[in-house]
């Protein structure tokens, strides 16, 4: 009897010491699927429709280019590229040629649109992104992530000019023969010769992530699809009072009619006279591609949404666009284009399809199936699929990287979005403060709690972790600096004992150390030059500022300006 009492007492004490916490966030326990070749993060803008109705669809997931006859609704041919080529932007060249950027290869492929064959492949830069064809000069312009704008002879592939602008270039368009280049993270519009242009500033929001920039050759109007990110203080955890409402709660609260959440899409037009108009699309947090019809309609590819992955909006104007919810799901659309004035052509990455609507605002959808095995992948799906808040991982980590935004988190202070595409597998704990012990913790705290996503089963979490850890882009390697200067910078990097913290193959990411009285995770320096602003709070605008800051903050050395230049040159090669 005494023993029974002791057992009951011990049981009561054990129960009293624990709290029964029931998490109402639903668990996604669908079976995890991993594609035989795991797809890359969505980059969008892989579709070209020529004036005669030929759709040229680059498929980075399958390393193919499809040639589809839109009027006939038939696949005319499939161009098989090398594994890992990762085809991206497509432009129509002269004499029946089509040019495709190969991001994985680092160059451009020229295709024969009639024969469906590869005419040429040429290496351009480590991470080419944008592509334009200058018919007058007979050249191709390739915008590279490292800041190089490379002019190639279209016929021979010879490099005519390599201008180094600013890092993180995205698209290049021609207005009266003058190249205009968008910058991905800052959403600036750079000119090869002239001052940059930025989207119109909106109250409490900053423009980032220029997903797609196009130009109307008739009017010269440039239209940019980009994101808006909040500069207001952002609560990390949702307010329980707000959660009692039936409406989905955006990350950081707020949102509403014509009021973006902390991230939303926006369309900015820049007229030849310099007039700039920015129109938010509040309920579209991940819009990866845009097409503008001759009538001014704007089509958006929204691959994060479960339904209505394409939205067609009237001409940009003051106010906002709102994407309606239509129960129409023909695939995960990642690219859009107009054929003529009215026909909307869409590319679905999974399943691989071309979708055609002769009436963009309604009517039936013609489906053209494309050959190739499935690339459905659970990790890719979790990363891109929108959560209850409307956000997906890709909203702040576009293309698996980062948006370059400095958030004002309540209770934490300013925190720059961290990069993902440098191989973060060995960099736990995560986040600047190192408060996320592993990716499972991060998925619960950030994906489920802050963003309102579903919790994932252990199997799906494992699949997601493998997919995220696989993301690794090549070194920046701008190539614009003197090799001697770079070598001197590397020597300084060692002699100044920078390697004490920036250690390992990725030069950091393996430890937490006090900096200015604050314990912070040491970031990897891979591709660091591509992601200004620098430091955990984004206080350094340039790589040179960051070098000075780190030397002052973490060493007892005095550093000369020539040493700063050398270290900066070395950083640009990482």
């Amino acid at each position, binding site marked *: 009897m005494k023993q029974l009492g002791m057992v009951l007492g011990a*049981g*009561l004490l054990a*129960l*009293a010491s*624990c*709290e*029964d*916490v*029931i*998490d*109402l*966030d*639903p668990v996604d326990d669908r079976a995890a699927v991993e594609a035989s070749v795991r797809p890359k993060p969505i980059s969008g803008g892989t579709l070209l429709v020529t004036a005669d109705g030929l759709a040229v669809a680059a498929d980075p997931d399958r390393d193919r280019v499809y040639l589809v006859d839109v009027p006939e609704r038939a696949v005319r041919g499939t161009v098989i590229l090398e594994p890992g080529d990762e085809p991206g932007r497509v432009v129509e060249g002269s004499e029946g040629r089509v040019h495709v950027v190969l991001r994985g290869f680092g160059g451009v492929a020229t295709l024969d649109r009639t024969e469906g064959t590869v005419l040429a492949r040429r290496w351009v830069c480590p991470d080419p992104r944008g592509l334009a064809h200058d018919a007058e000069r007979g050249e191709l312009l390739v915008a590279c992530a490292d800041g190089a704008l490379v002019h190639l002879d279209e016929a021979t592939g010879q490099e005519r000019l390599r201008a180094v602008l600013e890092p993180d270039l995205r698209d290049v368009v021609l207005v009266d023969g003058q190249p205009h280049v968008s910058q991905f993270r800052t959403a600036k519009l750079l000119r090869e010769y002239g001052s940059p242009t930025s989207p119109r500033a909106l109250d409490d929001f900053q423009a980032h992530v220029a997903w797609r920039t196009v130009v109307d050759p008739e009017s010269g109007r440039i239209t940019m699809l980009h994101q808006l990110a909040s500069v207001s203080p952002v609560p990390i*955890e*949702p*307010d*329980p009072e707000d*959660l*009692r409402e*039936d409406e989905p*709660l955006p990350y950081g609260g707020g949102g509403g009619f014509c009021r973006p959440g902390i991230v939303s899409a926006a369309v900015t037009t820049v007229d030849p006279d310099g007039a700039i108009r920015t129109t938010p699309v509040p309920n579209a947090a991940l819009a990866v591609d845009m097409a503008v019809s001759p009538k001014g309609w704007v089509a958006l590819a929204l691959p994060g949404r479960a339904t209505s992955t394409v939205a067609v909006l009237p001409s940009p104007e003051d106010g906002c666009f709102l994407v309606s919810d239509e129960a129409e799901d023909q695939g995960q659309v990642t690219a859009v284009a107009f054929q003529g004035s009215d026909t909307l052509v869409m590319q679905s990455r999974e399943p691989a399809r071309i979708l055609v609507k002769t009436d963009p605002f309604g009517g039936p959808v013609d489906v053209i199936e494309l050959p190739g095995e499935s690339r459905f992948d659970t990790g890719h799906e979790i990363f891109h699929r929108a959560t*209850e808040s409307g956000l997906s991982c890709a909203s702040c980590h576009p293309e698996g990287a980062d948006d370059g935004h400095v958030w004002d988190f309540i209770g934490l202070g300013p925190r720059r979005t961290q990069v993902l595409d440098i191989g973060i597998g060995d960099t736990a704990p995560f986040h600047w403060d190192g408060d996320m012990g592993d990716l499972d913790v991060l998925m*619960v*705290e950030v994906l*489920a*709690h*802050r963003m*309102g996503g579903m919790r994932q089963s252990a199997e799906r979490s494992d699949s997601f972790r493998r997919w995220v850890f696989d993301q690794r882009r090549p070194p920046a390697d701008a190539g614009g600096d003197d090799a001697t200067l770079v070598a001197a910078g590397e020597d300084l990097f060692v002699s100044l004992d920078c390697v004490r913290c920036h250690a390992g193959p990725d030069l950091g990411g393996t430890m937490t150390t006090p900096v200015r009285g604050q314990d912070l995770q040491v970031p990897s320096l891979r591709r660091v030059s591509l992601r200004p602003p620098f430091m955990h709070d984004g206080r350094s605008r340039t790589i040179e500022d960051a070098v000075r800051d780190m030397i002052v903050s973490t060493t007892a050395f005095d550093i000369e300006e020539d040493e700063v230049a050398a270290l900066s040159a070395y950083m640009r090669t990482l």
Partner: protein
Amino acid sequence: MSSVALLLGWVVISSAPASPVDDDASAATELPIGGVAPLQGGASAPSAPASTIPVDAAEPLDRPVSSDASPASSSIPITGTRPLPQVPERIEPPPDPKSTRMVRQDVMLGPVWRVRPVDTMVTTGATLGHEHGLSGTVHAGMILASDRRQVQAFDFPFGVGAVYRARLGHRSVYGSVGLTAGLLVHRARTVLGVTHRVDPDLRLPLRFDWTISAATGLSLAFVPGYSVRERSYLRRGAPVWSRSAVRLGLVIGLHWDIVQRRARPRRQVDRRRGGER
């Protein structure tokens, strides 16, 4: 908004008998007599022998009163018929709360606090034992959570234990304190479906009963409870429903007795003889 709780209970407790005169004469002789002496017989007729038992408020008869008695035999002149002394109406003796039993039903209302939220409680119970003294008790009930937007929760506490009852001043007012142990079954419907939890549950009811009539009265009870584990429901990491393990109910209502009877006399054991007497 404070809610009220409804306590609906069946209470079986010992109490005074409905009739003060028991058919069982032997039992009647054991009754303690307080204030009023029961009559062993009727008022004496003039020819009847005088009673040796004093009667309150009645003049005792010194000698027999006879209408045919000779005046010569009496030194007191008889001028007429002398009226008989007034016999008071028979007064019911008070019940002995330690030796009677009854069944009581009650209905009570009141709020239940579980730290911040105020919920509604309905309970039913039964107590078996003595009106005055220690009794056994069982209870079962339902607590209806007030915030039901995301978590539609019910708690079902039930248990067994003991109460000690005592009269408080006025003979119709009783107080009791008890301790019960049992389980609290938590049932909630959420977006995830129906959730069940079972926890140990303790109650320490402090109750006041005021019997208005023979079988009906008012009850007021403070019912502290403890179900060991705090419980929270989270949405996106933030609590949207939570309850402490500690609760305090304040319930008020009606009760009525549906069974009352005197307890059997306790047999006394003659330990010297090893038997009963």
